[in-house]
């Protein structure tokens, strides 16, 4: 899928004509801002990773779509360039984004990415649940019993399929 020309790095090749550059960047910044907090106990690079992952899972940023440049994201989210670099590096390792040399970063092309990520999250929760059960001494049989009980009297579905 073709990313819109505006996001595809046009502003990266822009000459340093400051007033025009800033005005353009302000327009782009609307879509590049993340909501970061310095008082949150999660390190900021992790917040960036989490929020970008959430956006990909929710479909805000589609597979193949260009990511904001590191500087653009840093400026719009008021965080240092090095933190964004680290977050992008982590996202690359996780396979959520890919970096093409000289062209910038893009959401990974895998069309199943949102699902893959959700599945990874599910597996994480599942393993954690099993570990917790082991510490409490809850047997597999008891877990199955709990599942059957839940099915008979289901709790309301809190999320519409996207990450809270």
């Amino acid at each position, binding site marked *: 899928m073709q990313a819109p020309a505006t996001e595809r790095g046009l502003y990266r090749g822009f000459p340093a004509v400051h007033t025009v550059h800033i005005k353009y960047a302000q327009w782009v910044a609307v879509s590049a801002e993340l909501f970061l907090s310095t008082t949150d106990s999660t*390190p900021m690079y992790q917040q960036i990773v989490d929020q970008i992952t959430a956006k990909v899972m929710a479909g805000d940023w589609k597979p193949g779509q260009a990511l904001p440049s590191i500087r653009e994201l840093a400026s719009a989210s008021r965080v240092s360039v090095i933190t964004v670099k680290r977050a992008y590096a982590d996202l690359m390792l996780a396979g959520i984004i890919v970096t093409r040399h000289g062209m910038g970063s893009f959401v990974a092309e895998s069309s199943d990415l949102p699902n893959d990520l959700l599945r990874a999250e599910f597996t994480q929760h599942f393993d954690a649940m099993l570990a917790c059960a082991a510490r409490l001494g809850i047997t597999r049989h008891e877990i199955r019993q709990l599942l059957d009980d839940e099915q008979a009297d289901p709790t309301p579905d809190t999320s519409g399929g996207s990450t809270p």
Partner: protein
Amino acid sequence: MTAALALSGVTKRYDSFALQDITLSMPEGQIMGLVGVNGAGKTTLLRILSGLARADAGTVEVLGHAMPAQQVAVKKELGFASEDMRLYKSQTLRWHMDFIRSIYPGWDEAYATDLLRRFDLRPEQTLAGFSHGQRVKALLLLNFARRPKLLLLDEPTTGLDPVARDEVLQALADILRDDARSVLFSSHNTRDIEQLADTISFVHQGRLLASKDKESFLDDWRRIICQGTWPADEHAWPEIAMTRQNGSLLELRVRQFSDGLLGRLQAQGLDIRSAEAMSLEDIFVTTVRAGGAA
């Protein structure tokens, strides 16, 4: 790409204070945060960089030019705002803006107008009527609107109310977009440095304790809570900056964290409860309390 600044072996002696053997550099397009207690040498360092003071020894290069020999060329592209700087009380902000505009060709009037609105300043008001926060913002505006290649700021957000501080940080974040412009700022608001700086430099008693990229710097430090008794053998644990014991609870502040360290602690019979990152403020206080070795 020329370095924004490069200091080598810089020394400066005053009667009761001396800056010793500072070697520091910063590439273009970065933001460096300077941390240190009052009197540690931050202001002296900034003065040497801006050409207002001359080092007794060592070399100073700013924006590719030797200082203070070529200070005129440097100051054309340099913005400097410090806490002890004042403007002319009898004149209006507009007079100051016109004065700066007549000297620097890079003055952007549209940007200045935008900053006036964002900083909530009235240009027709005389400086005598400005509060501390307004004065700081006025000085910053006079610097920002010229779009200098390097900004040296001494405590740009100190003493500002939360809204003003937010606006200043926003203006600083705007500079990030340009990869040819750099900022070096000192601040007691360590959260500002934590948020915006690419590199953190730590000055203490006239010496440079550390100058490292922010992420690695913060990654090095951990606050480990464990249960057990501390063997009180500091020499075997150079990575640990500070320990506190209360009954069976032990808090360790570690300056050089590694997974191997956790293993060694466990081998000592300590039961690790948690190992968390520390805020820059905690790191700062710990370093100073621990006797200034980072």
